[in-house]
């Protein structure tokens, strides 16, 4: 089971990595992209409406393609806080109003986490 899972996840990650255009990563997701990458990362994390087994290989491929730390942290935070896969459950159990407020309230946290990671990258990890 573990071997099978590892192989299929790695296959997915490898294929995504070769398919992501380098120019796109450089312009929109790299360290140089700055806050643009953080915003795009947070929104990208939100639409990754899937479990960790599927989402993490995709995020790993984006990282391997040259995305910045700020972008990667905002994607993961966006996926955990804003992830639309949780939306039907939140709306069903607590109401659409709660889901909407929680979503709006969570967005600044994704930006802040990405920004902090970006600052760390340009100040400490360069």
């Amino acid at each position, binding site marked *: 089971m573990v071997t099978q899972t590892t192989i299929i996840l790695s*296959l997915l990650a*490898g294929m995504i990595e070769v*398919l992501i255009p380098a120019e796109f990563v450089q312009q929109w997701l790299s360290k140089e992209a700055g806050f643009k990458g953080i915003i795009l990362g947070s929104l990208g994390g939100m639409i990754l409406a899937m479990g960790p087994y599927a989402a993490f290989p995709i995020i790993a491929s984006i990282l391997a393609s040259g995305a910045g730390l700020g972008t990667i942290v905002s994607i993961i*935070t966006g996926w955990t806080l804003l992830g639309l896969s949780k939306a039907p459950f939140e709306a069903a159990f607590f109401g659409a109003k709660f889901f909407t407020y929680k979503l709006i*309230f969570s967005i600044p946290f994704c930006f802040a986490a990405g920004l902090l990671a970006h600052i760390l990258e340009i100040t400490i990890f360069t």
Partner: protein
Amino acid sequence: MKRSMLIIYISAAIFIIIAYIVGGNDLVLDGLNISMKTASQSALMLLASFIVIGQIQVILSKEMLDKWLQSFSGIKGIIISALAGGLFPGDPYIYYPFILSFKEKELPFYIFISFVFGKHIYDFSRIPMEMSLIDPNIALIKNLITLPIPIITGLLAQRFFANRTMENMFLKVGDDGDPNHNNS
């Protein structure tokens, strides 16, 4: 087969086809080379992550978490409930019904918020997977950066909804607010 695994199989097949269309056999082989490297690097960590997930599920009982959530208040309650959220195993269809069961137990709203954000941000069973599938350093940095989020949200909820419980926050139209009244 679990739905999530089925999605991964289908996604992998689609990406192989796209790689073939875009770059022919060469691009597919490049992808396979990267896949083999990734597989050899992450296999052990992935095995460790499955063991951690299994252990958390065995060690923690719902009764234990139930007791934790109701025994503490204030900042201690916020931290404990955020940690309880992080330790609670399972998907939304498991943890949302669990936390919803506190609606009639007068659980403060801020404790509920800390639990929900703790589950989203901490989710300890996810950390080994993050480390094995993304990168251990990235996982560490991300978890350190986001560590205060459930505490901050809990404190904000306490500040603005100090005397509100889950029940009166989630009253539906037509509910009379009487805790003894069974709405179902």
